[in-house]
């Protein structure tokens, strides 16, 4: 039989061995094992998470057979946590699985230290009051937390972590780091040594566009007092200059040069996102600072002191039409500069570590190297406490969402999800949860929603009647497909948080199963 690791091949191609290793070291706690919770955990278990603990005090009922794949006839009357745990263990026997037959609300109330043992808690189907309490507990204990909920055709996902820093953000589309607008001496010499006017047509069309652009930009700068093309007219002229060098129809390298000429016109220096990070107060480091911020402090110094205010060179180049020789040599030049920049940053990291009283080698070479390569793509995510968001949401944001057609249903559901919790606190059941009295429930929910909006300072804004009716129609139903969708989103976010790769969502994700105009709301 094949070794077990082969089964992870398709996901290793996404997050690599390091990511997989982080997953395998993680311990996850699940609160409530209805379909929302169990479907969230399913993807994590399949992915090879280290251990899971399922917490649920309820017993399996007949109704659960209609929405939860992890229970069946033989489970009726048994602990739901136990049955779900058993099923999950079958999916991947490398995962350690435990269950605790207790209601999450009770654990939150009587045993908050229970949560400190976990890497991350997945809290599903909790009402506001419990969410706020759990949030405080996890923040205190520095345990990552993610809330998920399905409610009829809506639901939410919300991460709650004080700060999550990402080095390997791996964005879909990110400009390569060729520094054509700011070539360093070695790149200049390399380009200088190549004659663009070479006679041999084969050689002419195999000069890589990087060389073409560096030389042409240099020519231009010499003729324009050191400046690069900046006006529309100048940029057009620059492209004409390139076109003028083409001697045959099949010169792909020149076509590529023309297409890539915008890289010459690009402004020098770092992005506003990176500016924000290096000027963040956490970049003023001390002995409590995380490795990430120590490296940011070093990066800040690098940018300020090394020539031209750029981040360390990433070091790789995209494929381009070129002779093999030119391409390989060009690669070596970029790699050498990248290595050089890394060594400078490494030295600064060691100095800073010494200054704050830590061992200068306590951050590994590999980590610093990865940081340098990803310097232009760093991300910092911060999440307000749920309590703060509930008590003081951003009013301008709320108003903007309520009046934007693409957001109005999602924000309507956001408000209603809070309103139904208030309703339940007052009337001991969710609106529409039981048969009969629908009209009264609708009217009560409407009143509750309006009073909630008023409390938030949104006097005068209302939700549509249709949406309020719909929320009552849902009657707090936990539908399997909705739970599976939300569970999928949540599990993906958990993977990002644990592997520290890719960028987790900001704000609260509201699922809109009516027209699928789901949105992330930052409030």
């Amino acid at each position: 039989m094949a070794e077990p690791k082969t089964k992870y091949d398709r996901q290793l191609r996404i997050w690599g061995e390091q990511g997989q290793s982080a997953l395998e070291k993680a311990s996850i706690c699940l609160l409530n094992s209805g379909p929302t919770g169990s479907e969230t955990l399913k993807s994590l278990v399949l992915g090879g998470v280290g251990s899971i603990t399922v917490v649920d005090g309820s017993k399996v009922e007949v109704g659960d057979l209609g929405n939860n794949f992890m229970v069946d006839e033989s489970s009726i009357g048994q602990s739901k946590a136990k049955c779900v745990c058993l099923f999950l263990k079958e999916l991947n026997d490398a995962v350690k699985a435990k269950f605790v037959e207790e209601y999450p609300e009770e654990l939150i109330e009587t045993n908050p230290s229970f949560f400190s043992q976990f890497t991350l808690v997945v809290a599903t189907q909790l009402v506001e009051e419990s969410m706020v309490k759990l949030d405080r507990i996890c923040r205190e204990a520095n345990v990552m937390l993610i809330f998920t909920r399905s409610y009829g055709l809506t639901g939410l996902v919300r991460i709650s972590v004080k700060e999550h820093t990402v080095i390997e953000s791996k964005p879909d589309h990110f400009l390569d780091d060729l520094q054509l607008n700011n070539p360093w001496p070695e790149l200049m010499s390399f380009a200088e040594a190549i004659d663009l006017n070479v006679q041999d047509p084969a050689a002419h069309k195999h000069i890589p566009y990087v060389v073409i652009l560096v030389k042409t930009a240099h020519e231009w700068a010499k003729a324009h007092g050191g400046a690069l093309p900046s006006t529309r007219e100048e940029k057009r002229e620059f492209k004409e200059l390139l076109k003028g060098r083409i001697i045959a129809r099949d010169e792909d390298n020149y076509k590529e040069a023309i297409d890539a000429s915008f890289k010459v016109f690009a402004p020098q220096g770092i992005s506003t996102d990176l500016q924000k990070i290096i000027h963040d107060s956490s970049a003023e480091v001390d002995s409590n600072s995380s490795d990430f911020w120590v490296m940011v402090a070093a990066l800040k110094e690098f940018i300020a002191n090394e020539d031209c205010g750029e981040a360390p060179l990433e070091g790789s180049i995209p494929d381009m039409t070129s002779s093999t020789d030119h391409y390989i040599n060009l690669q070596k030049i970029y790699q050498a500069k990248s290595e050089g920049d890394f060594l400078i940053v490494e030295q600064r990291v060691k100095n800073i570590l010494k200054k704050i009283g830590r061992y200068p080698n306590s951050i590994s070479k590999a980590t610093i190297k990865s940081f340098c390569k990803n310097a232009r793509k760093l991300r910092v995510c911060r999440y307000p406490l749920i309590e703060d968001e509930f008590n003081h949401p951003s009013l301008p944001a709320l108003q903007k969402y309520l009046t934007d057609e693409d957001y109005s249903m999602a924000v309507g559901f956001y408000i209603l999800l809070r309103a139904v919790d208030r309703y339940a606190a007052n009337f001991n059941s969710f609106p529409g949860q039981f048969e009969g009295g629908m009209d009264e429930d609708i009217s009560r929910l409407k009143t509750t929603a309006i009073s909630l909006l008023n409390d938030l300072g949104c006097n005068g804004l209302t939700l549509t009647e249709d949406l309020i009716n719909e929320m009552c129609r849902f009657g707090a139903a936990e539908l399997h497909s909705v739970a599976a969708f939300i569970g999928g989103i949540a599990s993906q976010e958990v993977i990002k948080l644990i592997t520290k790769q890719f960028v987790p969502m900001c704000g609260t994700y509201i699922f809109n199963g009516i027209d699928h105009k789901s949105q992330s709301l930052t409030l």
Partner: protein
Amino acid sequence: MADSTAPQSRSRDLDKLLLRPGNLVGPNFDPGTEMRDDLQQYARVLVVGAGGLGCELLKDLALSGFRNLDVIDMDRIEVTNLNRQFLFRLEDVGKPKAEVAAKRVMERVAGVNIVPHFCRIEDKDIEFYSDFNIIALGLDSIEARSYINAVACSFLEYDSDDNPQEETIKPMVDGGTEGFKGHARVIMPGVTPCFECTIWLFPPQVKFPLCTLAETPRTAAHCIEYAHLIKWDEVHSGNAFDPDNPEHMKWVYDEAVKRAELFGILGVTYSLTQGVVKNIIPAIASTNAIISAACALETLKIASGCSKTLSNYLTYNGVEGVHSKVTEFVKDKDCLVCGPGILIELDTSVTLQKFMDMLEENPKLLLSKASITHHGKNLYMQAPPVLEEMTRSNLCVPLYELMGRVPKDILHATGTINNDNKKTSGLRKLRIVFKGIDGVTDMDMAGGA
């Protein structure tokens, strides 16, 4: 907060959506136990594919009130499936996906009946597909989607005002995933765009220029493709490369390493070799779960009307945060597949054989080795030999006679379509009009004949 007074039903949660009236619902929504029970008893859904999406779809549909499902998949289970195709275990490796998936879901969800079909989608005749109310696709190739799309659209008939006839609309729900990205769409032939109408949505596959592979390789992928596409044939002429044969793959890897060394290129690994040669798409459980759930939800909405449906294309990207977007694409009225059909005007004397020759030459069709059916009746079948023999005599008969002397009608033709020198199997809808006949019979009656 359980309601302990009423006896519990499995349908406890679904009932809220299916038994209660609402305002944001489908146009023909008729809430009640009758509708819910009809859904269970009569609704038939076909799931195409029992892989990453298919497994999830079967589970989601079984827990959405459907009792009659079929699943079709020609593949067997492999170890690399196990990180997301959760219905399969290590001991199932080698068994047919459709059969194991059906069995596992039926074991867990009492009352649901799933009929597995371990075969290619092209192996089923059109009648098979017409029996389903909705077709849900969990496929991983453009060709397969194109085929099913053509089949579903072949049922579509138009009235004399060129409006689609509702009872001939075969809805499809299509999902696709790749890493953290995916899409889900609803296709109502004749109403929304079909797969062909929006084929431009799928980016062309990356192909390296031959001269790069042969003369100026620069990357590890170039070295790999050189070994795979050029060197293999030079050394193994006649013996086709089999990506599933580990010895073949190892040979390609070794050759790629040699070439890379020759040119000073770094980065050739066995994993990369497999990835490039097999065009491996990275895949994880969560994205498949998300997209399938969206598809299953839409299937439920279409079948029951319990909510408004997705209109009509959802794209999803989870690389940076969570982003989804709904786009309402518009149908191409000249679409060769979901449109009223490719118009072919014929003399009443044209024989079936001559007609088939014309299909091959028609620039809109380029269809060779055609099999022709007329309202399910075989006019000529290329295979199997028994049927070919039985229908061979029709070849010299005028098509007008074979079609019952109607002035115009729809024919379906399956065969090999020559697309830019790439041959794929396909199905096309043909609108036949016979010249010189007084068109007394209109399209509606012709369709009912």
